[in-house]
């Protein structure tokens, strides 16, 4: 069984899903791509918005999410951050 993903990994998976769709994605696609329940998706979306990693856009076709410069920087540094956090036991629940 695959081990449970931690928050930083979920953030990365969600941002990667947005990035892979040219930086813009609809919530239903994001839910499917990041393998999260509806409730969990909303919770993580709020957290990503709070951290300024994504922006929410309201259009006539509904909501969509775009990745920000901060989100792209997080993706770029993710590998080093995760190694640092893992070795020093700095995961957050």
């Amino acid at each position, binding site marked *: 069984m695959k081990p449970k993903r931690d928050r930083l990994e979920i953030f990365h998976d969600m941002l990667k899903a947005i990035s892979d769709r040219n930086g813009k994605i609809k919530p239903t696609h994001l839910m499917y791509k990041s393998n999260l329940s509806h409730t969990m998706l909303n919770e993580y979306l709020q957290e990503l918005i709070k951290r300024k990693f994504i922006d929410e856009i309201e259009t006539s076709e509904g909501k969509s999410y775009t990745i920000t410069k901060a989100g792209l920087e997080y993706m770029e540094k993710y590998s080093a*951050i995760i*190694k640092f956090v*893992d070795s020093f036991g700095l995961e957050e629940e």
Partner: protein
Amino acid sequence: MAVTYYFAPSWFITFGIVFEALFAIILITISLTAYRFYQVSKQYKLKLFSLAFGSIALYYIIKSLINANLIASENISRAQLLDLGQLSLAAHIFFMLAGLIILLYISLNLKNNRLFSLLILIIFVTAFVSRNNITIFYVISTILLAYITLHYYEIYKKKPQHNTLLVCIAFLLLLLANLDFILTSVHSIFYVLGHFIEFTSYLLFLINLILVFKK
């Protein structure tokens, strides 16, 4: 003999300053990396970790600067020397304990702020009110490091990887160095030995940091 400066054998004082400056550089590098990663990820524990390592770095900076000043001052009186030693001792206690308490706060995942403030008060009051500050300081920091090391051992058991092992051994060596420093009032050679153990510990922290950036 309540001043740390006198625990060091005279031939080692300059080496001690070099060691402490080196520890400070390593600690600052780790602290700044943690802060940079906090800015990118907004992971709160990274900010606390940066503060903890920064605080311990400050302790080494102040200690080495004061010791360097003591060596440079040829015409200094014994009273002035003791005053400077006490200042070094106060900085020693404050910044090291502050750093360790923050690390313990991260390790124990404390959510209760009242309990945390009580822990801080007990440790600082005990350390500052006590007559024989330096020994009690080393005893308290040894206890704190024992809990921190245990936490890192549990992390290693949970994630048995080379980087978690390196950090666990590094904290274990810091714990051993502190145990060794308790004995510095018995013989000054323990002061030298403690610095070498600390050096190995910080070297492991540095290796871990290098591995973090290795692709």
